[in-house]
């Protein structure tokens, strides 16, 4: 079973969100997602100050096996990206919820937080494949 921390929110496309306060969320991909991808060898980060709609493609994670889009989990503007991933993309494998975070997002006014999954909902959504 993959580790799914209770204090985070999730999307069906395997992003996690951590509430940093003041409408800012940190975003990464889940332990389940990195395990499915295998060894991660390249990350294309979103651009700081760029605004995205919910479910917009805003980056790419590439493993030895395949390329996988990162979707913006809610409408908002990117305020920070994890530059360390440029040289050490494997941080996502080693530490998906901490050192392997991908970007931070300041939510737009009409962000639909209610569309996110709880830890329990996310666990159920991956139960068949996990």
């Amino acid at each position, binding site marked *: 079973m993959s580790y799914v921390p209770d204090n985070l929110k999730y999307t069906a496309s395997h992003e996690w969100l951590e509430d940093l306060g003041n409408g800012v969320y940190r975003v990464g991909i889940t332990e389940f997602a990195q395990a499915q991808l295998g*060894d991660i060898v390249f990350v*294309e980060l979103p651009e700081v100050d760029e605004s995205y709609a919910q479910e917009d493609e805003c980056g790419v994670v590439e493993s*030895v096996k395949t390329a996988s889009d990162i979707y913006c989990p809610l409408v908002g503007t990117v305020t920070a990206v994890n530059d360390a991933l440029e040289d050490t993309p494997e941080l996502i494998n080693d530490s998906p919820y901490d050192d392997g975070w991908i970007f931070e997002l300041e939510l737009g006014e009409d962000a639909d937080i209610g569309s996110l999954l709880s830890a329990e909902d996310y666990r159920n959504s991956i139960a068949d494949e996990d």
Partner: protein
Amino acid sequence: MKQTVLNAAHRQAGAKMVDFGGWEMPINYGSQIEEHHAVRTAVGMFDVSHMTVIDVAGKEATDFLYKLLANDITKLFTNQALYSTMLNHQGGVIDDLITYKISDTAYRVVVNAATREKDLAWFSQEIEGFDATMQEQADTAMIAVQGPQAMATIQPLLDLDLSDTKRFYAAHNEQLFVGRTGYTGEDGVEIILPAARAEDLWNQLLAGGVQPCGLGARDTLRLEAGMHLYGQDMDENITPLECGLAWTIRKDNLEFNGAMALEEKKASGVNKKLVGLVLNGRGILRHDQPVSDGQGHSGIITSGGYSPTTEQAIAMAVVDKDIELDAIEVQIRNKSLPCRAVKLPFVRNGKSLIED
């Protein structure tokens, strides 16, 4: 899904299993990159039991294979191996395969798993009229042991002396068939043995510290070694002349299937070729990405990926013959990124051959 006799052993070793052309095979046992490095620096092993072994024997076995294969089977010494393409009458590649000469009247051929049915059908059709028989050896397993420590690791475990077996030769007894061949660019062997004995050998290798490796590492290793993958780097819609396999075509006569079509191709002009590519900046080259030189010449990446040994993105691409090699750019997600063309292979015997 079909399973090899080592299926349970893979699961026990923590393999992630995937559907590979109807076979349930290990893609990795945790980290594909660690498996890759094990083969480049020490020794790794692969279950390749899904591959098909066909024995050809008879007074005219040589004549049959001389017609069937584009490379020259008559050049072989006893126990020597030959890489060849098998062409249809249009010059397209039905499969690539390895043939071992056992004697003047007996050969062992190993073909790809995904092409088994069509290969067997083609063999059956083409063997008509020759005084020769073909027999698939279905009750065998095949384990590849590859890496700089492969020979030293495997010898004590086998009741077969390999000390005189040079690269691209084989040794065999009644139970074991050991070819000093592989698909990694490293020294090593491919062992064909009775299915019932496979798990024992696998476990002995495991106990001896040999890293089990999945299909993922097999793919990055063969790509670094500049070796073709059937169905991706070539298929029935391309001739060997256009995809970097002209070296496998014998030149001295036209007595093989597809020879006339190749002659016509040469006469009308071969306008494609295979190149090695390295991405200059960050990103990953992938199968099917388009390339161009901005001057009207283009091409397509047939195999691409991250190279763990060189820590760069590498690829093989089939391109227009006159493409400007210094101006090749690859299209990745709406961006054009500069590549440089390099000689194949990218890596041989553990070392990067990519020049800066």
